[in-house]
Each structure stands twice: as C-alpha cells, then as structure tokens.
C-alpha cells in the first residue's frame, strides 16, 4: 500500500502515525493509571472504573455548559477547571464508595468485582436519569480542536498534545506520590498487609479512603481528557474496561513503570498494526500477543521478584 | 555391586543466585541412606534455599542434584515427590478445610492422576495405613477433627504424617519444632528416631537441644557454603561455628 507515494508523503505520514501512536499510548496510560492504583495497589477489581471516567466526562460537560451559559468570556480556559473538578468529583464519589462499600470487602478481593459491577449499573442508570440516554456533546474551545501545522503535510492535533500533557503530568504526580512521598510508603504498606500497617501506627482507614479516591479521581481526569477525542454517554465507560485491566495486568500490578511500559507496547503495536490491517484484526492480534506474553510471565512484564 | 554404598542424595557444585546475590554457592554434599542429617547455620545462610532447590521449588543456576541416580534439577515438583522426596514447609501447611483423615488420605500415594482421583475408592489398606501413621504422629484420636482446629504443634505433626504416608526415601523438614513446646519437641524427636528405618531425613533446625537429640551428622552452612561438617560434638566446638552461629 505504500507504493506510489512521494518520499515526502511517506515521511509526514510516518511522523503523524508516530504521533497517533503516542496519543494512543497516552490514552491507554491515562485509562490505566487510576486502575493501577485501585487494582494494582489496592487489589480492588473495580469494574466501575469506566463509569468513573464517564463521571469525569459528565463533569466536563456540565462545566462547559455553565461556562458557555454564564461565563462565555472565560470559555477558552474552562477545560482546565473542568479537569480539576473532574478529579474532585470522581475522587469524592470514589471516597464515598470506599466508605460505604469497598472497605467491607478488602478480605474478599474477588467479591469487589461483583459489587463494583453492581455499582457500575447504578452509576450508568444515574447518568441516564440525569443526562438522558443520548450522548451529550461536550463543546471544546476552538483553539483546542485545531491542529498545529508543522509543515504543509504534517499536522499535529492540539487535543492530542493536551492529552499527552495531562498524562505526563498525572504520571509524574502519581509517581512522586507513590514512590517519593511518605504517603506512598503508607499506601504500599497498607496494601501489602492492612492489619500490620495498622499495627505500626498507620491510619489504614484514611490511607484506604484517599488511595481509592485518588484512583477514582485520576479516572475522572482521564474521562475529562477523553471528551476531546471520544463520546460521553451513560454506557461509554464499558468500552474501556477490558483494555484497561489488560494494560494494568500486562505491566505487572505492583509497578507503575510496568503499567507505563505495558501501555506503551500495547498502543504502539495497535497503532502500527492498525495502519496495515483492519482495526478488528489489529485488536485481535494485539490481545493475543498480550495473552501469550502474560502466559509466559504470569505476573506481568514488570513483576517484582519476591520469594514465594 | 556398589549400589549399596551409593549415597541416596548427592548434591554437586550447586549454586543459585538472586539478582546477583549468591544464596547458595558451589555447594556439594552427600546424604546416606538411613541418615538423619541436620543443616544448621545463621539466618540467611541459604538453608531453606537448599531445600527449595532439592524439591524443585527454586531452579538452580548451576550444579546437579542426584537422587537415587536420577537428576532432580530437570524434574517437575510433582515428579520429584513421586521419585521419593518429601518436603515439609517452614510454616505448617495442611488443608484446614479437611479432616485429619482426609489430609492423610489426600497425601496417600494412589489416585494421583486426574482420573484415578476421580474414581478413587477408600479401601481397607488405605484406612489401615492412615490409622498406622496417625498413631505415629500422635493424632490417632483426632482423625475426625478439622485440621483447622488442631494446635500449632499438631499441625506440624500432621504435615510430617502427610509426608510419611507417601513413604518417601528422603524426608526434608524445615524447622519442624519451631513454635513447639518443650514436651512437643521431645515427642517430635522420638518421632523422627522412629521413622528413619529405611529412609533418610534432612532437617533444618535452630534448636540445639533438639539437634543434639536427633542428628547423626550436622552440616553448617554460612553464606551459601559449608563451613563445617561432622558430628554434633565436632561442630559445636568448631570455632568458626561458634563465631558465626552459636555465639559465645
């Protein structure tokens, strides 16, 4: 399919295709970061992760509506406020969920799957009852929907760059929190042995609540960012769940670096294959490869080696 | 024929390292039939790792483990067990959900393949054997109790019983009396004396009193290497052992 094109054409396609891969990488990573905390660190199989993303998306929608209605002058900037609000809203709902449900299930991790499945049904219905079953259109400031023309043939979408920037920022913040702050140590201690963490004086309840809230909040940010490239409807969250879990599992649940590496390899493989094969076949091939590798490295790419 | 004199287990130049750290370092030793050998050594010397290597739980970086003429390093865990090596873990691991009887029955070496297990029937011989073993491990009155309800020491015995019923040629016990009371330790020592007959026992233990009671020969490990080997008397008085292990 590449014959008959000028070198220039091919070069610019190559640049744009690399960038498409980078955007996909950011999308995957952003989806996965929240789950890497909630599932990877806490072991909660949160089937409502997608719904938390959509919660962030709806927050963005409400924000865009309010700004368009009452503060049109500031509309160009509303998105950044929306991202922060998405974090707060999703995080708060997450903390409420932890308090009301999840904390009773830490000893039964598989049951969190069932309970959060119920939660996801309820959240979907809440979205539907509040915003209607139809998709809502999140209007974005014009400048964000444009592209940056590197050359006549190379256009880099600005919203893609914003997604990449948000992903980068969130990744750095989470990395700092988990690995460079005392709070991260407390989180890891609690996740490895909740009782013992309490016995060395860590307020496990607070750590649990904030950790879960953080994971959900990050999901909310992901949802807010995805309004730039995807749709917002009550059930849109379900689309993300398999990919997200796979990214986290593939990376090895305990390590953030693993999640990053896994998001990177899966997205690059997808984006390259998609260029040469149909979308379906690209997905199938990537999934099968991931399954194959997981089989050989059952604890994921970057599992920490600790003796059994 | 020399078979009679061949050692039961022969470990040669065995090494394993974890991320560059050599936990077992070019280790060689041999174990005769009918011998109770105790491995002692400082915490972190690599004792548990040696057992892990023999029973296939950890794969060696290099070296060989010969058991009755078979190379163990290439076998799967369950094949090593079937070859006649039994392993008791450091913390008692029994099936808490099952009765003592069932714990022993599961360990009985028949019905080990999927379909044999499916059509396995309890017969007189098996029941007899279970009774026999349960007496040996002081649990003949507890056959119908759930393993979860046993005391710590009883669980340790049960696990030993689960190995015995497989009639292994080599029995490996990792700290069998840890957490036992004085009197339980005494009874465990008796138990070990009784079960050797035709088999060999490899024990790891820190309780010197207990070691003294049971050991035919003691091997001292330090940083993955043997630093002393011989009778308890010999080892006890070895200044290197006193220095790194026993203390003054």
């Amino acid at each position, binding site marked *: 399919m590449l014959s008959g094109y000028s070198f220039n054409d091919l070069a610019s396609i190559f640049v744009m295709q690399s960038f498409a891969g980078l955007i996909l990488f950011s999308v995957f990573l952003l989806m996965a970061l929240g789950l890497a905390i909630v599932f990877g660190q806490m072991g909660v199989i949160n089937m409502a992760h997608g719904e938390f993303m959509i919660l962030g998306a709806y927050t963005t929608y409400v924000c865009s509506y309010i700004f368009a209605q009452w503060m049109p002058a500031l509309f160009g900037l509303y998105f950044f406020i929306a991202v922060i609000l998405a974090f707060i809203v999703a995080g708060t709902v997450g903390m409420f969920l932890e308090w009301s449900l999840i904390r009773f299930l830490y000893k039964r991790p598989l049951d969190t799957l069932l309970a959060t499945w119920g939660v996801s049904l309820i959240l979907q219905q809440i979205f539907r009852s509040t915003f209607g079953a139809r998709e809502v259109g999140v209007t974005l400031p014009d400048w964000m929907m444009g592209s940056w023309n590197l050359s006549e043939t190379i256009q880099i979408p600005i919203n893609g760059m914003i997604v990449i920037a948000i992903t980068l920022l969130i990744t750095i913040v989470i990395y700092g929190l988990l690995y460079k702050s*005392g709070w991260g*140590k407390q989180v890891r201690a609690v996740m490895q042995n909740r009782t013992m963490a*309490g016995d*060395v*004086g860590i307020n496990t309840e607070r750590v649990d609540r904030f950790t879960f809230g953080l994971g959900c909040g990050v999901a909310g940010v992901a949802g807010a960012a995805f309004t730039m490239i995807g749709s917002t409807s009550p059930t849109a969250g379900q689309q993300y769940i398999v990919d997200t879990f796979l990214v986290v599992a593939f990376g090895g649940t305990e390590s953030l670096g693993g999640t990053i590496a896994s998001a990177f390899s899966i997205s690059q493989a997808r984006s390259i294959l998609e260029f040469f094969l149909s979308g379906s076949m690209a997905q199938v091939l990537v999934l099968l490869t991931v399954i194959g590798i997981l089989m050989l490295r059952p604890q994921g790419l970057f599992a920490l080696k*600790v003796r059994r | 024929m020399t078979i009679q004199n061949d050692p039961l287990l022969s470990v040669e130049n065995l090494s394993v390292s974890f991320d560059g750290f050599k936990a077992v370092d070019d280790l060689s030793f041999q174990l005769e039939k009918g011998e109770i050998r105790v491995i002692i*050594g400082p915490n972190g010397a690599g004792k548990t790792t040696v057992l892990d290597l023999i029973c296939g739980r950890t794969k060696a970086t290099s070296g060989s483990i010969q058991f009755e003429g078979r190379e163990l390093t290439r076998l799967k865990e369950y094949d090593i067990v079937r070859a006649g090596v039994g392993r008791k873990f450091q913390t008692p691991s029994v099936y808490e959900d099952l009765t003592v009887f069932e714990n022993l029955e599961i360990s009985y070496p028949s019905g080990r393949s999927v379909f044999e297990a499916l059509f396995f029937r309890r017969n007189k011989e098996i029941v007899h054997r279970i009774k026999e073993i349960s007496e040996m491990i002081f649990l003949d009155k507890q056959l119908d109790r759930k393993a979860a309800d046993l*005391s710590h020491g009883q669980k340790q015995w049960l696990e030993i019983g689960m190995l015995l019923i497989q009639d292994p040629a080599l029995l490996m016990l990792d700290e069998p009396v840890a*957490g036992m009371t004085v009197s339980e330790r005494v009874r465990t020592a008796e138990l070990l004396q009784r079960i050797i007959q035709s088999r060999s026992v490899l024990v790891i233990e820190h309780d010197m009193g207990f070691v003294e009671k049971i050991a035919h020969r003691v091997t001292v490990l330090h940083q993955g290497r043997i630093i002393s080997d011989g009778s308890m008397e010999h080892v006890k008085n070895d200044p290197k052992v006193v220095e790194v292990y026993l*203390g003054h």
Partner: protein
Amino acid sequence: MDTKSDNDVMNIPALGTPLLDVRGLHVAYGASEVLHGVDLQIGHGEIVVLMGRNGMGKTTLMKSLIGNLPIREGSIFLDGKQITYLPAYKRVEVGLAYVPQGRMIFPTMTVKENIETGLFVRREKSVPENLYDIFPVLREMGSRRGGNLSGGQQQQLAIARALATRPKVLLLDEPTEGIQPSIILEMAHTLKKIRDNSGLSIMVSEQVLSFALDIADRILVIEGGNIVHQTTKANVDVDLLTRFLSV
C-alpha cells in the same frame, strides 16, 4: 521507678499506676471464647514473659492488646489512657508496639522502607541510627526487599520496625522462633539494653524457658485463656514452670 528491684508478685498493685493495665479481658473467635477474663499489669520498664503451651492464647492476648481482635469484655489502660476501643493505629500513637508471630514484613518494600513505615506515627523523617546499631544486618541489607530476607533477618527487621514507633510498651510474640542461637543470646541482651536506654516495658511470649529466664523480670503462665501462675524471676520454680509447659 527502680525496675531492677525484685517485685514480689503480691506487691504488683503497689507498683503505683502500672503502665499497661488489663482487666477482665474476654476475647472470642466467633462463638468460641479463647480468653476468659485475663488480668494483667506491666510496670514501667518491666520485662514480662508470657509463657504457655501451644494454643493457650498467647497470640490471642497480644492481638487483642494491639487491637487486631475485638474485645468482648474488659478494659485496657495504657499509661492511664483507656485504649480498649481504639483502632490499632491509635494504640500505637498512645505507645504500644507489636511484633507479631510470623513477623509480617511488608514483602515488596525494601528493608529501609519497612522500618520507615514505623516512623509516620511520630511524624519522623529518618530512621534513628541507634536502630542500626542494634541490628547492623539491617543497614547492610537496607535496599533488599523485605520478603526476600531469611526468617531470622525478618525477625530483626520486625523488631526494628516496632521500635521505630518509639513505644512505651513493646509486645513480642515468640521472637525467638526460627532465630539462630547466637542472635537469641544477643536478643535477650539487646532487649534489656533497649529497656535500659529508652525505659520502655516489654512483654514477650515465649516457649523456650532458657530465654525466658534470661530476660524476664517476671513470668506469667497462661493456660486455657487464664493467667494461672505468676512469679518474679527471683522466685522462679523451674520445675513448676516446666510442668506447666508440658502436656
């Protein structure tokens, strides 16, 4: 208070306010009650050894003191504060520390991080050097993952982690289990040194009589969920103790 003096059992109430004061403690697993009204006092700077056969409730007592098991009846006071209904981390704040049987190291955290988990409760930043002086092996292995340590190394780590919380009372559940003889010898010495330096009180559960005799100011025997015998070290009747400890 002069902790070196021989306190007669009968005098204990006269110690003044004990540091840890446990009264009428009943603890149960579901329907089956394991502790049937334990009374127990530990004075300032005192080392108490709790002995008893397997399954007699030593671990249960320790766990209920630190707050890992709900208390059915009774009360616990630490340094005059009622802690009966506090969650574990608050008890640590008040001054209890616990080294569980089986150590419970955080397996994927490094040795240093494991110790650091004990610092949060006092809002401290770095590991006190004297901990490394007591357990030099921990300095050596600082960046190794806790789960990869050998049993004995983990035991030392667990004690260091507990000490990092700067407790008033340290609870040790069978600390000699799986420890090499020379370290056991040292441990008795070390624990006494810690007690002398920082003035904390220690309660140790133990099966090994020699170690108990080595370290104890006072020995308690628990049986069937009750304290059935207490004696100061001076008055120890070894035969009697041995009888308690054998079946």
